[in-house]
């Protein structure tokens, strides 16, 4: 391994150069997609001083589009100009070339390319067998591909071992370090279907915000939610009319750097898992997002989120839901709602209902009435009357249930909203 000490083969080595001159040279180049050459049109008209000179210069330039020389985006491909960025989920491709710089035949060449990440070491070489000989000015080529699955520092370790004509075994390696960055920022948010009028549906809406945190535009080829076995999913990211479905993002098929897009999905529990009162509690697995994007000339990337989890809405011991409520009511006129009270606990409860007025909502009837005993999983419906003294969208709050056995009080605020309108015409007219 101590290459440094071996200097016998390097008779052409300079005196004070301690470094080993190897017969072989290793070169590595990252193969990102090539780019299209853009030219810079400067034109003039026939009667301007240069006459047709500028036009002719542009026509003779091989990089211009013939017949449309003022179009800057040409067809000439140029090789990648720098290492660029590499992002999680993309494929790292690299050209590895071992060239015989010497004037002698070199034997038994073995080229090995490993990728060292913070957690593991992967072998990327296409073949692990040695090449028996390499003539001067010839090279061994390899193109490696690897889909990066980790963020952070990666080191490509290329090792070359070979035998000289003199039979000496030599070895060297080179290290190439690069950082893998994060391409996307994903945030999710769950919404429970607002009014649980029919508690059988138990729909959940998932909003996913996906932000492009790279520096280049990104075409989102696929953003889909793969639901867990308990749910069916409906994607709400296109609007269909006349059999044509149009994306909610319009023509913008791509995300500019730092742009964010919102995707919406509706999840319904499959019938067999329907969220019966109190049955599903705590954390449920919803599914995961699968994201495929493309950038320059089809450079592809793919990521999945981990399983997204959602806290089933905590109903506590007693669940209060609404079975009936008008959407619009008149100002200062009483209206009726029907509440459904379900005992989600394991024991029987003895409940007392208290109604507290808020700034806008005024309950009618007696507060503090006894609802009687309620056994586990049983429910009862109670009609209530109230009125609002304030116009606009009003939140219905102020219901209190007290379990007289345990002297425990449950508070129910923001149960639902109603729109309060003024039924009178304005005094002037």
């Amino acid at each position, binding site marked *: 391994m101590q290459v440094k000490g071996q200097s016998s083969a390097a008779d052409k080595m300079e005196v004070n150069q301690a470094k080993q001159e190897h017969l072989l040279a290793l070169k590595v180049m990252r193969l990102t997609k090539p780019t299209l050459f853009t030219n810079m049109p400067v034109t003039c*008209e026939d009667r301007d001083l240069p*006459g047709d000179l500028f036009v002719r210069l542009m026509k003779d330039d091989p990089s211009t589009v013939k017949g449309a020389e003022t179009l800057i985006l040409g067809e000439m491909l140029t090789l990648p100009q720098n290492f660029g960025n590499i992002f999680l989920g993309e494929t790292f491709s690299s050209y590895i070339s071992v060239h015989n710089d010497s004037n002698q035949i070199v034997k038994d060449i073995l080229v090995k390319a490993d990728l060292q990440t913070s957690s593991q070491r992967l072998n990327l070489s296409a073949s692990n067998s040695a090449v028996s000989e390499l003539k001067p000015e010839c090279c061994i080529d390899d193109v490696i591909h690897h889909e990066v699955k980790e963020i952070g520092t990666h080191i490509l370790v290329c090792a070359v071992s070979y035998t000289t004509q003199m039979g000496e075994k030599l070895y060297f390696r080179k290290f190439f370090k*690069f950082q893998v960055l994060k391409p996307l920022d994903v945030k*999710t948010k769950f919404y429970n279907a607002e009014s649980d009028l029919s508690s059988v549906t138990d729909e959940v809406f998932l909003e996913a915000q996906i932000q492009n945190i790279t520096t280049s535009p990104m075409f989102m080829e696929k953003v889909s939610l793969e639901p867990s076995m308990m749910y069916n999913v409906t994607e709400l990211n296109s609007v269909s009319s006349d059999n044509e479905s149009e994306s909610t993002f319009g023509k913008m098929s791509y995300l500019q750097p730092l742009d964010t897009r919102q995707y919406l999905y509706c999840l319904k529990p499959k019938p067999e898992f329907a969220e019966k009162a109190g049955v599903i509690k705590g954390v449920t697995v919803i599914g995961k997002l699968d994201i495929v994007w493309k950038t320059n000339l089809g450079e592809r990337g*793919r990521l999945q989120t981990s399983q997204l989890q959602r806290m089933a809405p905590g109903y506590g011991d007693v669940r209060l839901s609404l079975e009936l409520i008008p959407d619009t009511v008149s100002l200062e006129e009483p209206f009726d709602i029907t509440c459904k009270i379900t005992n989600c606990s394991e024991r029987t409860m003895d409940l007392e209902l208290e109604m507290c007025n808020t700034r806008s909502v005024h309950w009618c009837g007696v507060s503090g009435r006894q609802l009687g005993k309620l056994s586990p999983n049983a429910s009862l419906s109670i009609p209530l009357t109230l009125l609002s003294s304030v116009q606009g969208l009003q939140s219905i709050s102020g219901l209190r249930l007290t379990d007289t056995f345990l002297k425990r009080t449950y508070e129910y605020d923001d149960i639902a909203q109603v729109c309060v309108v003024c039924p009178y015409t304005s005094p002037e007219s």
Partner: protein
Amino acid sequence: MDSSEAPAHRPVTLDIDGADETLEASVPPQTDPTEESIDLDAEAFVSPQDDSSHSESLVDKLNDQMMESVMISDSPNSEEEDVVPIDSLLEQNEEEEPKTPDDADTEERIEDVRNKDVSAAEPEEASGALFKEENEGEKIVQVDDKRETVAPDDPKPEAPKTQESALEMDSDSTPKDEAVPVCTIFSQGVQLKAQALIPDGFQPTLVKSPSFTIGNTETPNKLVPQVCQPSPSLSKFFTDSSAVNPASDFFDSFTTSTSFVSISNPNAESPKAAAPPESPLVSAPTAAGTYFTPVATKPQVAPAEPMNKLQAVFPSGDDPFGSALVTSDLDKRRDAWLPSEDTRRVLISVATQQVSPVQIDREQLAMPGLKFDNLQGDAVKDLMQRFLGDQAAMKRQVLSANSVEQNFLGLKRLISTKNWRAAVDLTGRLLTAHGQGYGKSGQPTNHTTDSLQLWFVRLALLVKLSLFQNAELEFEPFGNLDHPDLYYEYYPTVYPGRRGSMVPFSMRVLHAELPQYLQKPQETLDRLHRIKSVCQKILSNLQEGLAEDGSMMNLTQDNRLASIQLWRSRLSRVMYSMANCLLMMKDYMLAVETYHSIIEYEPEQRVQLLSGIGRIFLQIGDIRTAEKYFQDVEKGCQSKGKTANEDTSVLMNRAFVYLSQNNYADAHTCFSSVLELDPKNPVANNNAAVCLLYLGRLKESLGQLESLVHKDPALYLHESVLFNLTTMYELESSRSTQKKQALLEAVACREGDSFNVQCLKLV
């Protein structure tokens, strides 16, 4: 299309909550068990070479043309057994590294590279330790902190819970109600500007030659010292001919070089040449200056009244001379322009002799002058001197400003031989002779058709040479090209009867396009829109039976049609500029729309435009839409019955689609079949060679490009091809420098002083 890559694409799991079970579940069974333990190294979050932002896009573009070196590089032969902080990504070319002769220096070199990193806002790595021991708690805290500052809209645990599924949040134990922190790698917006000139990527570490990276900023800087030096000879020779120099010019017509007075002509200084020169172009009658009878020009025109009043004054019917003064239709068509309200007022008052030009406020005048002198130089020769020695450099023969006729003919020769630097010098001399030389900016002067054409050529060449700052400096005194003294009406004695703008239309377009190269694309769009609206107004005037400028004038039908055609082509030129600018701004949707609308004006460019739009979509990554446009091209070709040319564009488009599907083999086949139809097609040749490289066939690719360059240097000594070639030389062998020098020699025999030597990657 993805089938070829399918096996490679195991989904990457982005762990959100780090619960171990989910981790395992998401890992494909065949992978290494350790695989998914994602490194949450705090530094990884801070580190990235964030090079920020869309605003840089234009710079990207520019840098594209600058062409950087690509090699990922390495520290040479590091023998350390275990992973060590070797981060020299700089390609080490042993022969060229005199400073680092031995391993002892490796460390230092790494330091060097790091220093460069710092300038590129890569804060991390200072510790040098690549793989930090994981310290979970601490890291999470850091991430949290960051998030606090970055995302103030931190979701409170309220009813609809915001759960931020950070892509790889690691195993923190309480995923429950707490919002999982999100790591926002790029959120440090501060870095944005610092990086304005750096293209994507790790580039600061990678760039091989320092001159490359700073290429575009450096050039103008280099010129700064020159800016302060007036050329001694010329400025002495031509004394100040500024203030009262009547509108005579000694070189009025460029079309007839014989009438050109060389700059050594003593006339150049004489202010007495009041009569307009007899040039065939300006059909000025000898009676110039006398045709305005006081009667005809009673100042009955209110300042705010439209231009056609002025026209009524000019060739007015009751003036016997009026009809004789009509300039050629061609000139009228070409020079037509709509001045701004203020300018129009001034012009009317000049025409009506209310005001003599002398009285006009200097601030309303365009007073250009050279801002720098002699940019000279021949980078090819300099490189030859450096790499091939003085003797070889002596052989390099290019035309210079001295070696051609000091007139328009000489200028044209310099331009056509691609000696644009010399051509710029020559324009400088000619302008100096005209009294608009170095240091004359801000001094009143007289403009002529030719002086403005000279300015146009000079500025156009500066742009072609990518000397944008210089161009901007010299454009500045022209303002928005609407000063009254830039109109023929301002010089009733010199250009009697001639109307319109002296500023060539192409100069307006150039003026509009310039800011985009200086990171001011919005300014470019503003200016282009202004030009566009004038074009549209002129077109509507013509369609309503009026003259270009809206005056009531009878145009013959032929004349009108010719004029409409001219202005439509100008309009389409402006639209092209807009679309190009939008493309550089990466506003792809608008760019596509604009390109599409050009088809209406340039139906014969339909194929090219549709293909170009398709390529834009490929660039974005939207292959499906690209294919739609390519299909349109194919349909168009089929309906016409294919011609060879159209066939090649169809094949070319197909090749690009294959390329975008990572199918380099079929892409190569397509490019090759283009070559069967059109063996000399340089694009197909070059692209086929590029495909070969991606197929792992370096030697073949290199051989193909090399032979092309040697066989047909006229076509292939182009910077894109040479860049590809030198990149492959670097990849192929340690002796790339010699091979590049051979290219330099080839360039030296053929190319002028405007050759962009950066593509040779010698320095």
